[in-house]
């Protein structure tokens, strides 16, 4: 058990000993244009642009 406190004696956090473990990001989607579902849904998904981006097109 380890603890830390700041200069004012107020406990700010307790943390266990550091023991890093790599957790690489996984590949979860196929590159665009290659996915069948993405292709089929492209009319819907392309319509899902953020509102801000859509407003750009409206000028």
């Amino acid at each position, binding site marked *: *058990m*380890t*603890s*830390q*406190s*700041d200069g004012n*004696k*107020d*406990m*700010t*956090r*307790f*943390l*266990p*000993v*550091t*023991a*890093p*473990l*790599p*957790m*690489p*990001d*996984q*590949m*979860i*989607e*196929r590159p*665009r244009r290659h*996915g*069948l*579902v*993405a292709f089929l*849904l492209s009319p*819907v*998904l392309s*319509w*899902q*642009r*953020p*509102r801000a*981006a859509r407003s750009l097109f409206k000028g």
Partner: protein
Amino acid sequence: MLALRRTISILFAVFVAAIASRLAMDVFFADGTDWVDFVRIALCAATAAWIAWGASLALGGLFGAPIRTPPRASLSEGGHAARTAILIPVYNEDPRATFSSAAAMAESLQATGHANLFDIAILSDTRDPEIAAEEEEWFLRLHAEVAPPIGVFYRRRTDNSGKKAGNIGDFVRRHGARYPYMLILDADSLMEGETIVEMLRRMEAEPKLGLLQTLPKIVAARSWFARALQFSAGLFSPIFTRGLARMQGKEGPFWGHNAMVRTEAFAESCGLPALTGAPPFGGHILSHDYVEAALLARKGWIVRVDADLEGSFEEGPQNVIDYAKRDRRWCQGNLQHIRLIHGPGLKGWNRFTFVQGVMAYVSSPLWMAFIAASIVAPLFAPPPEYFPSPYLPAIFPRAETALAVTLLVGVGGLLIGPKLLIALRSGITGEARRFGGFIAVFASTLAEIIWSSILAPITLMYQSRSVMQILFGMDGGWPSSDREGQTIGYGEAFKASWWIVLTGIVMLSGAFILAPALFWWLTPIAVPQMLSPFLIAASSSPASGRIAARCGLLLTPEERERPAVMRLRDAVLSRWRMPRVNEGDEREDVAEVPQTGKAEPAYSAVQG
């Protein structure tokens, strides 16, 4: 065998869809054939298949061979190799409620004789400064409460990247190598120490087991709405889960909490990047648990749900509004999975699980579309031909009422039948005694069926709205859960459901004008919708829950005999309600805990 079970279940759903389509053809073509009829038949087939799939899970749970108890290892042999971090992610939750659960679980673990294997880490993503301050204050209480050898840790992130999945991932990246196992909980989770140790034994016995999920029972229900949910989860869910367990093989589910993971497996498999594009379909993955289960299976790890594990609890929403808010979040998360169905290397069953998750929400707008198509269908029907042959007398189109009733009874039977069978089974096996006896179980099952039938048209509307919002690009964000729940006033209920009332009125008016034959058929849907403010408000009050309890309805084993860990939590809360003696001294004590010098540099909202 597994492939056979899956094939039979899928064929059952297809068979039911085919029967429903055949009956629907006879009913809908009675007044002539038009294109709307084909739309209705397709919608009828899709929704019937979905209902049949749910029924097949229940039937699999009811009638399959008993599931053997999995192998267990002796922990004395495993020793410290089985060190486990109990992770409790919090996000603007009530810290007293969450931390008291942590204290109770620690006490429960002490009694197992294996407390030396566990540490508890509160992983805060809280953004509200007031709640963050309360968390630190209540953590002092927790720290004082939990005796060694269980260590208790707390940290708060400055940025909430990755949301809950990012919060867990952050712990794994910084501290994961210290703990071969992690028990992932929710802020409202509560587990018996014996259950946690039993999970550890099962993890130790099967080196390829990457994740072990329990079926949490819903507890602490106060309102009628919550008690119905609690009863349903207590009596019906274990059977459905057993059916699911028989069907899933090694590609089981992860429901995000009350599950133990092998840290090494989780770290190498479950690093989740954000999806390309903007929310709601892109960005951080909201329903990360399903994806993590799929990624573990992709790397060859076993993901399993053990329905026999008791002593795992969670709290549910207390009213319809909170339930709908949670559903909105889950709906967006599940629809996001459309992007992953075609993900690289995933197992077929996991892809199918994504489809099931999508269907769980898309089926609601499909039902609405079916109803709407049925109302407007007469507008598209060809004019009746009374004299198809000049040599025959006039032939009048006839309504196929008997077939329509058959279709309705069939669909209703698939929804209600499994629940009645589960109630019957509880009487035969003696399990009903835990729920107050067979009469109580049977009466409660009938009450639950009636209530869920009344509520279904309302939740149907909320789910349909969620799906439409997401399709129109509206991101629901990451609202915190209101686990305390509130009594909903009539004004508030009307504000949240006026559009459902309007839909009910429009539906009945439309049927009256366009399709009078449908009028009475639609009343079981439209009338609850028109009464939705009343139903939402009335079912949210603790008084409504007390009425059910007084009538002996919707009782659960956990209410009849409070589990040990819940009694421990009650005791902790009663201690915490009392003012602390020498509060200043206690703070000093905490500050004086010897520092090892190995503590990680701080990261919190204070320092960024």
